[in-house]
């Protein structure tokens, strides 16, 4: 796909097997530890959500009510930071290093270093989580780990990602595929965003307003310039692979990439609308958030129309189903970005629960759904085993979709109602505070669904990690072709 070499199919299959074997341990480590952190993050998310509508924690033991470990500020900070760095970053690393190795046809020569760096990353996350829960967090949104943690995360990232840059440089053939553009860009954007933000917030002496502005910029660009590109790069690889059809419009794909690259860095400052900063900054952020619809709809149309060319595959393929859901939610993300960032929309929702819904849609609805699809594709190839249960995959998919759609609906709709009540200056504030009660309750219930779905996913992944999957000659599909077994006959996994 990515190379113009003259390899036979057999030689290419051997190289793919070498790539998969070389990356088995680091990629499975990232996926499995990421899934564990996802479950932990959702647990803290449930606690933070429950405390918003039921601070006395009526249904659960007093420990959760009285303990400072689960104070709502700490639980929420733990939830978001573990979601981003424990799950999101590690899942992205696993997909990035495997995809880049596959697309460049370069087996990894540094799996030991990558695995060690992965352990270091996990250690830093654990220290960060303990720091937040014991009150040592920084209080800066999405950067709440104690200040000793972020240099370790950055060092680990360098030791993980630099080898993929090397693979790209020494690849055979001159042509590149669109996925490589997105992955290379994400690999370089992440250190830019992460390092500069942390330096200006924690290291250099600066005006507190500048700190707030840099933090707001960091939150937007971490999503638009790291998580979204990795997910889109994976979607552009998986869709033609599974459907067997070429991308609908490669020119549109290139256009979408450059649109994201140009628009993405300007987003973020809309969070500071009304703050004593130059007027153009929040307006710039608002415009960027609205214009994000352009790359979102470009990618969505490209991926979904490509899938539509092979309608017989979509009902059966777990990968395609998750990627399709993520692509649809990407378009929804663009639309909600417009709704929340018009002048009226921003005025109403700036200090409401709507912002949380948008963030969860981006990280869970778009990024995580596409990455789940990538995991369902990659894991059989690196473990040489097929997934055990199509039922588990179905549960994971439907509970996740119901959960994230409910969270987004409750947060966005509830946010607008809260904002409307906040704007009614002649009414008591209690009215605005209680308007969101039903919607935070809905969010809590939705998180329970997502928690169950991810426990199922974690169990399934752990079984695959222990190589207890089936040796089968065709993939685990969502609806079986075969009367006798959903997995077909015994045989080797096709690593195409």
């Amino acid at each position, binding site marked *: 796909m990515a190379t113009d070499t003259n390899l036979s199919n057999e030689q290419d299959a051997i*190289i793919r097997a070498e790539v998969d074997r070389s990356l088995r341990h680091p990629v499975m480590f990232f996926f499995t530890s990421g899934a564990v952190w996802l479950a932990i993050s959702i647990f803290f998310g449930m606690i933070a959500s429950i405390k918003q509508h039921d601070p006395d924690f009526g249904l659960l033991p007093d420990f959760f009510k009285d303990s400072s470990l689960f104070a709502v500020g700490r639980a929420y900070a733990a939830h978001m930071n573990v979601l981003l760095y424990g799950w999101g970053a590690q899942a992205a690393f696993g997909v990035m290093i495997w995809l880049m190795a596959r697309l460049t046809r370069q087996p990894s020569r540094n799996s030991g270093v990558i695995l060690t760096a992965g352990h270091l990353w996990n250690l830093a996350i654990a220290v960060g989580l303990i720091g937040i829960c014991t009150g040592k967090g920084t209080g800066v949104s999405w950067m709440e780990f104690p200040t000793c943690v972020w240099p370790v995360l950055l060092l680990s990232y360098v030791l993980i990602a*630099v*080898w993929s*840059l090397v693979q790209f440089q*020494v690849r*055979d053939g001159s042509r590149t595929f669109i996925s490589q553009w997105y992955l290379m860009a994400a690999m*370089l954007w992440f250190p830019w965003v992460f*390092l500069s933000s942390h*330096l200006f917030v924690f290291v250099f002496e600066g005006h507190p307003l500048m700190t707030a502005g840099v933090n707001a910029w960091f939150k937007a660009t971490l999503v638009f310039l790291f998580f979204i590109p990795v997910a889109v790069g994976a979607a552009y690889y998986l869709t033609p692979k599974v459907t067997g059809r070429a991308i609908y419009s490669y020119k549109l794909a290139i256009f979408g990439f450059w649109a994201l690259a140009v628009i993405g860095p300007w987003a973020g400052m809309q969070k500071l609308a009304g703050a004593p900063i130059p007027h153009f900054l929040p307006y710039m952020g608002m415009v960027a958030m609205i214009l994000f619809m352009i790359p979102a709809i470009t990618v969505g149309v490209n991926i979904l129309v490509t899938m539509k060319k092979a309608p017989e595959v979509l009902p059966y393929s777990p990968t395609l189903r998750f990627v399709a859901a993520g692509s649809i939610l990407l378009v929804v993300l663009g639309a909600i970005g417009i709704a929340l960032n018009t002048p009226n929309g921003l005025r109403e929702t700036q200090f409401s629960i709507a912002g949380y819904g948008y963030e969860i849609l981006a990280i869970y609805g778009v990024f995580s759904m596409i990455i789940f699809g990538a995991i369902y594709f990659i894991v059989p190839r690196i473990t040489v085993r097929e997934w055990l249960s199509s039922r588990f995959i179905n549960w994971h998919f439907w509970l996740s979709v119901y959960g994230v759609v409910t969270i987004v609906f409750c947060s966005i709709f509830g946010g607008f109602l809260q904002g409307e009540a906040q704007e009614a200056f002649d009414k008591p504030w209690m009215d605005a505070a209680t308007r969101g009660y039903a919607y935070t309750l809905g969010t809590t219930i939705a998180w329970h669904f997502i928690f169950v779905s991810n426990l199922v996913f974690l169990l399934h992944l752990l079984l695959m990690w222990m190589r207890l999957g089936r040796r089968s000659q065709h993939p685990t599909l969502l609806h079986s072709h075969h009367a006798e077994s959903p997995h077909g006959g015994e045989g080797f996994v096709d690593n195409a």
Partner: protein
Amino acid sequence: MASPTDHPIRRFGAFLLGLLLISLFGIVCFFSSPFLAKGEQDAAYEVNSKRRLEIKKQVDSAQAEVLKDLQPEASFKQAAASMISDQAVADPSAIVPGSPTSLNQ
């Protein structure tokens, strides 16, 4: 896989280039921070804040002097005790909403 572009020197060069690109962001931030991250305060603000802090210190010390003699804690206790001991004065002309009087009207 061994390709014409894959040899140790090229790999090492790519490794160094990757490290350089990543650290370049930090280097740029470091050299731009004196222009962007100004820690010093506005001079007029500094002068004014000194004056205001001086006034605040004077007010606090004067207040502490007065309160030292008055012993406010003792007077709070006395006022609370008299509020508790005073009986509520009944005012027949005031009708409490929901009371039998209001319902009979």
